[in-house]
């Protein structure tokens, strides 16, 4: 599974929607339940899954899935 697919699995888990599909441009306005609270859960799950830690400034700058993927790539290389 590539990073996007792995992240998609995490999104599906957090939002409890087995068929959810995300792309690099998916952002909070595309997913109804993506609010500040689910955002925290996404970050926790992603950090745990990829065994990485985002800095506070990185977390606050995340706007869309593409940002996430880039960050994960930069930290797991």
């Amino acid at each position, binding site marked *: 599974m590539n990073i996007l697919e792995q992240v998609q699995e995490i999104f599906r888990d*957090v939002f409890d929607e087995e068929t959810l599909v995300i792309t690099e441009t998916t952002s909070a306005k595309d997913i109804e339940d993506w609010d500040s609270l689910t955002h925290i859960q996404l970050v*926790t*799950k992603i950090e745990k899954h990829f065994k990485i830690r985002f*800095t*506070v400034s990185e977390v606050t700058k995340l706007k869309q899935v593409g940002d996430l993927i880039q960050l994960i790539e930069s930290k797991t290389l």
Partner: protein
Amino acid sequence: MNDLLKQLHELKPQNEEYTELLKWSRRIDKQGLSFENVPKIKVAVCGSRNTQFFTKILQVFLMNQGLQVSLYEGEYDSIRYEILNPESDLYRFQPEILILLPNTSDITRYPALLDSSKQVDELVEETAAYYRNLWDTVLTQNPCVILQANFVLPLENALDQLEINVPYSKTVFISKLNLALMDKPKQVHLIDENGLSNEIGKSKWFDPANTFLNKAPYAYEHLPHTVWIYLRKIMSIRGTYRKVLVLDLDNTLWGGVIGDDGVEGIQLDPNNAVGEAYLSFQSSVLSLKEKGVILAVCSKNEESNAKLGFTHPNMRLKIQDIACFIANWNDKASNLKTIANSLNVKTDALVFFDDNPAERLIVKQFCPEVEVIDVPEDPSFYSSALYHAHAFDWPQITKEDLLRIKAVEGDLERENLKTQFVDYEAYLKSLDMSAVAGRIGTAQIERFVQLTNKSNQFNLRTQRVSEADVIEMMKDENCACISVDLSDRFSPYGIIACTILKKQGSNAFIENWVMSCRVLNRGVESLTLNLLILQAKAWGCDRLIGEYIPSLKNEMVSQHYLKMGFTLIKENTYECDLNKHTISESHILLKENL
């Protein structure tokens, strides 16, 4: 129950990740999950930290326990506003339970460097007084139970090793403040978040990024454990807690198998690491017994062999410590039922400790209501496993808990006495029972609440009360909280019966009547009725009205009022005409009126 509710019920939320619990919270909201015919409990959460996840996860825990809950969450950093403003939404909500979550960062004034102990103590007192004032304000305006987190000692401190060597350090100040908060009204229960942070390890507990990002004082991964403490407190205040520890013998209390190895062969050597581990576990068990936990043995053994183990000179547990001893070859699930029956408790009061995973599995499967402790392979960790399960996290320890152990031991002697009498009346006389009874005072409140909330079987209306409720009722002249404190020639029992009587015009209504099943058929029932009649007559009432509300567990008292000479007036409602009824004789000597 629908499938989702069933799944939720089977969840062990304390073992789940916080993200999983939040998912459950959303499912509950989205699907409108709720239990039918379950009364709602009203819980409010106010904190000077982010409480959103805490509140959501608390709801999952409460529903997991089969409780329907109505929650109110104060705004961020709203403790002072909600409590000091009499018009606040908190008071409009009228919580039964108020959870206050202050933060160590709320403390703005610390001792100055070089302050004396006396100056430090004054500041401690001043800070504690602020919280006591908040509690008093709440309790006057809205009687309820308050759960408040204590202050978590920080991990990093400017004074390093001096922290514990000088009186003016933050470490000393916060520790003293936590102790000072112990001076509190009975309705306030402190929750040891600092203790939890120690258990988890402070370097794991704190997460500065989470604090700055989300205003959360600790890493969210610890939410399930944190909420679990609050849940246990709420459950135990409501009377749901365990009373009996059921122990296996071979490789649980000692190393080896008594049937094969004999009394000389079992491992209990204090000079051997393994023997020491078993002995240390026995000491832990004894310290639970001291606080009132009833001990039972459930072992696959010949009874004579099993008891032989207790003759080992190094045994710390003695055969007299065991209130119920079952050793046979039956399956443990049915033996647990026998144990519960003989101790007059339900199986949901049992905690099972057995080194054999197969036995644990059987019990989990056939008695899911029993708490099964996950016993580690190495006996060195038995004590930790026992403590970390927090199975006996009681809301208070009363005189009665400590007396119960004596009474259970006295039961054997009482049984022996019973066989000497053919006539039950003569047996009752020979017990030399005496009672101190009447309307309760402050000293009885704690036990009154405990017995009222934990009695399930002898409980006519299953009305639960909080200490706050009882304090209010004691002030009300149209209300009487009556208790009976019993002793016999073998042991004192403490308070074993509690009733609440309410004057409603010319009727006196029995709001609640509970009794400990340990003293069933001893004449306490008629003594209690006599007290109710006297109180009703003192109010000038003509009739005493009793009602039976069936619950899952109180079938045993369905005919209670008929047995007591009441007449049925409508379904489950009975009356006793006070102008006709005469006080019945009792074998219990009323020594003293409260």
